[in-house]
């Protein structure tokens, strides 16, 4: 991910505007056109009524978000299960949650690095040609324990560098992957902000693959008993050829 992707990810989780709100805006525009281009302000009685409708709609959205939060289970212990709730299908394991919504979007929430094969299989069942790979993350390697090595520095593999020659174009990356930050309670009044990946499988070009490398952040303390996860922004590859992991050593 480059600096432009970082900017693209900022506030990327904002939802689409509710249709009621768009309808209010359209009514304002149409009224202004009919009245000879005079702006119609939001102070009229009609606007106040419509804003009430918008508020109700927003309330409904908030309720739906809360329901999704319960469904994903947050960071608490969740037994492995396969749920069907309303118009979405959700697979929940202790390590990760994958939810497929009725519109085809797939949301991935990673808690810890475990069962990557199951995650890959679940994503593929949801129409995402996923390639899940472990990512070395603060994994100590090197000469520790070898004779005569005690004075040598201990190299630490922090992550991978992946060549970008097989990446799909940036516009495809932006169309397929967005990041949404969600807050989860951790118990005892604490909370944490977690990045979830929202995948739009319909935007993936034919033959492409979604490359998802992640691992356990072994040097960071766990939260609520769960190890922290370190993940790269999922990358859309042109095909199933996985770029080699070149260890980044600090």
């Amino acid at each position, binding site marked *: 991910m480059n600096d432009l992707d*970082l900017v693209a990810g*900022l506030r990327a989780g*904002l939802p689409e*505007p509710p249709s009621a709100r768009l309808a209010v805006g*359209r009514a304002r525009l149409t009224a202004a056109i009919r009245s000879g281009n005079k702006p119609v302000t939001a102070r009229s009685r009609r606007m106040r009524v419509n804003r009430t409708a918008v508020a109700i709609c927003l309330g409904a959205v908030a309720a739906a978000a809360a329901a999704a939060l319960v469904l994903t289970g947050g960071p608490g212990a969740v037994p492995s299960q396969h749920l069907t709730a309303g118009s979405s299908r959700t697979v929940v394991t202790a390590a990760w949650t994958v939810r497929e919504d009725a519109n085809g979007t797939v949301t991935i929430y990673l808690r810890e690095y475990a069962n990557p094969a199951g995650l890959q299989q679940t994503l593929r069942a949801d129409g995402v040609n996923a390639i899940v790979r472990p990512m070395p993350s603060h994994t100590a390697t090197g000469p520790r324990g070898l004779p005569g090595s005690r004075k040598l520095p201990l190299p630490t593999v922090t992550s991978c560098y992946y060549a970008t020659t097989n990446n799909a174009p940036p516009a495809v990356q932006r169309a397929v992957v967005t990041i949404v*930050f969600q*807050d989860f309670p951790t118990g005892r009044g*604490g909370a944490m*902000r977690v990045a979830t990946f929202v995948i739009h499988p319909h935007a993936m070009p034919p033959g492409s693959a979604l490359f998802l490398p992640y691992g356990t952040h072994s040097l960071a303390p766990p939260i609520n008993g769960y190890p922290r996860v370190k993940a790269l922004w999922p990358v859309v590859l042109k095909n199933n050829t996985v770029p080699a992991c070149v260890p980044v050593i600090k």
Partner: protein
Amino acid sequence: MTAPDGETDAAVIRRSRHDPEAFALLYDRHAAAMYRYVVRRLGDGPADDVVAECFLAAFTRRDRYDFSRADARPWLYGIAARVIGKHRRTEVRLLRALARTGADLVAEGHADRVDSRVTAAALQRRLAGVLAGLPEGDREVLLLIAWADLSYAEVADALAIPVGTVRSRLSRVRKTIRDALAGQDPTLLAEELYS
């Protein structure tokens, strides 16, 4: 943009010269994306009025539209840039608040906030600080590309500047961001779960 019926934005605008209410079709096509873009920049509060002002300004200027441009998005976002520019202080204040406190007032309106102590990722905070400090023209180019998904040529159209200027501004901004984020690995976004 071309609708399923094959009528381009340019054709809709041309038709609206004789049938003014046809212009609402342009709103139907682009308002949702415009709303989201404005909310990302200015927060939820002024979004209704800003979007309304953009489309009304577009309507009043429709006679001057370059009808060789089938897609009206660059034109609309160029108008939006001028309207958003009137709210520059609001935009910078929100970005600085995010940089300083980690609380993103823009996102707060759309998420159930569990705990006020939750802070945004350090990387986001630093990035927000960089965006707040950018010259207005540079920030405009960057966000039209990163948030509105316009191409370099479309940004040039929107802001009425040469494509070369778009490239040079973007290059300068990206270097500023890279320099500011030096020491942090920008490839690692999901690792820090703040408590």
